[in-house]
């Protein structure tokens, strides 16, 4: 009797998975359309986003400014009173970070590949270059929305990422995966919300990320495209330039993380 009951329950679970699902490419392309379309993205060459980065459980928050430009330049500055100024960025093919706690460092290995993928400007429209495979995996409820779950495999060999696109709006609602860092790999989950239209493109103004038992919230207060950026916008800080010179003068050392060749970068998440 119990066996039949278990089979019935299992059957209920299986049914939604047998529903015909759209191909992953169609789901991602619909997302690009839902957020403004390829032509709208291509009108933008750079952006400056300002907002707040916070760790609500610890009562810590700070002002954040994130600057991005074609093709893959970024510079992010977060100022937290009790900690100081944290900076990270991508200048050409150098990914770097300056932390008031750990000091300056050049980002390497698998972490570098992740950072470069995320640095790609107008990332959604470049997804075919950055992911070698995208597969629809089913439908899952995220909050109040039914979402199509798409597993995407980075072409640079990075950890696969799972994207959840709303069936109703086509927008990216959630992303899960594993983030490579110098301190180890962490499973993470990001929730995207509060999409707003800016110059023809819809962007999530709120991101909540959970990783290593912590929750980080990113809230954007202003977003501008095609800003007149100074030539120094993506210049490496002096201490990073010193490290780069030192590294060039030294024979290469093996780091703890798996290496990723620079030419394999230039990939991005569709968000």
């Amino acid at each position, binding site marked *: 009797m119990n066996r039949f009951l278990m089979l019935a329950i299992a059957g209920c679970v299986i049914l939604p998975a047998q529903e015909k699902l759209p191909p992953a490419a169609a789901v991602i392309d619909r997302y690009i359309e839902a957020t403004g379309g390829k032509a709208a993205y291509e009108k933008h060459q750079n952006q400056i986003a300002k907002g707040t980065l916070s*760790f609500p459980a*610890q*009562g*810590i928050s700070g002002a954040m400014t994130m600057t991005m430009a074609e093709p893959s330049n970024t510079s992010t500055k977060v100022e937290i009173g*009790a*900690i*100081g*100024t944290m900076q990270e960025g991508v200048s050409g093919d150098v990914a770097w970070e300056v*932390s*008031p*706690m*750990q*000091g*300056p*460092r050049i980002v390497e290995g698998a972490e570098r590949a992740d950072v470069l993928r995320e640095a790609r400007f107008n990332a959604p429209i470049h997804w075919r270059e950055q992911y070698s495979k995208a597969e629809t995996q089913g439908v899952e409820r995220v909050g109040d929305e039914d979402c199509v779950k798409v597993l995407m495999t980075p072409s640079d060999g990075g950890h696969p990422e799972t994207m959840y696109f709303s069936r109703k709006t086509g927008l990216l609602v959630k992303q899960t995966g594993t983030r490579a860092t*110098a*301190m*180890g*790999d*962490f*499973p993470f989950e990001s929730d995207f919300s509060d999409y707003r239209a800016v110059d023809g493109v819809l962007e999530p103004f709120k991101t909540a990320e959970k*990783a*290593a*038992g912590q929750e980080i919230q990113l809230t954007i207060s202003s977003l501008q495209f095609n800003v007149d950026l100074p030539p120094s916008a993506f210049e490496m800080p002096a*201490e990073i330039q*010193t*490290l780069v010179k*030192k590294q060039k003068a030294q024979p290469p*050392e*093996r*780091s*703890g993380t798996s290496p990723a060749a620079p030419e394999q970068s230039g990939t991005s998440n569709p968000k």
Partner: protein
Amino acid sequence: MKWTAVLLCAAAFTLTAHAQSDDLRRRNLESFDHVWETIRDKYWDPKLGGLDWVSIRDRFRPEVEKASSTEEARALMDRMLALLKVTHCAILPTEAALSVHGMGGPGTLGIDVRVIGDHALVASVAPGSPASAAGVEMGWEVTQAGGDKVAPVLATLDKTYATSTLRELMLSRAVEEHLHGGIGQRTTVGFIDGDGHGVERKMTFAEPPGTLTQFGYLPPMYVDMDSKRVRPDIGYFRLNVFLEPGKVMDAFGAAVQSCAGCRGFILDVRGNPGGIGAMAMGLAGWFVSERGKRLGTLYLRDSTLKFVIFPRAETFNGPLAVLVDGASASTSEILAGGLQDLGRARVFGTQTAGAALPSVIEMLPNGDGFQYPVANYISEGGKALEGHGVTPDTIAASTRETLLRHEDAALDAAIRWISQQGRL
């Protein structure tokens, strides 16, 4: 006065003994449920050491329900926690919990206390402080603070920490809490002076040295550091807590860079209870030139954090001494233990607190404190620092006699060692 307040509260409860009995049972049960659920959900090892935690609850909860006093309930909860066979997982008696949490104000007298044996001794007196002006000397024993006797508090805490590496930290901290008060307030402290006579000193609490900082939900704290040369060719840097990284790391970097040609460098983290763990990696980056090295690994419930060192562009490669004592905890131990494991530093002083895990202390509904660990930390040499601490390479312990002679056993030993090393 603080302990008197606790006794007054207890006296008030006895007036409504019957009503309190039901209320006490409820609060003890709520406390038990909180402890049981916290271990189930937050303890760093999700397997709970292989224990059947549900059966354990079923065994202990009815007994706690029948407990007729907080002491009885506390003993039952302690027995349950003891099944985990780890340190830093205990119920702290109300009066001890209040001492750990601290009820003093920010004002300081400039006295640094260490409990050595059963005696709370003045380990240092800050120049220009109220204690210095009042003629307090190193090596004096603190017997009374704010009109309350120190010995009963030490005796109460000693029951909990008698065999723990945390003993010196917790007992010293409890005494120091009672040597703090509101800035501008007067207080009287009782001592046994160098000649063995009981003396009293009236002093006014002053603003502590350093920078007042608040990190998240931690209470405001003063970050104090001291950068100097203990000899023309030996640099020295002392830090009282690992907070305010923007200022501390800049000051530390400047101290190391200005000492590039020094014979050696001394880093003093005695009495430093820890703080932001990542600062240990940043400080180590000034002394480790090889990439890919790490201080150790932190094991959380669902992930692993490697404490990687990122070498600075220019590192100090000469002899490095780290000074520690029983009140050096957490980040201090991670830094000292990791540098010791890497063979990069020689450690001087006494055994550290063995509180290298992020353990937290919460207040329970029945007023007791509850301490539990949320992660496990293994130093680079494969040692768990939790419950063990860092064993100095050179044991250099202060006594009442050495303190009365104004000697600093650990610092003196470190200077001697550096002097014996070859010049860079």
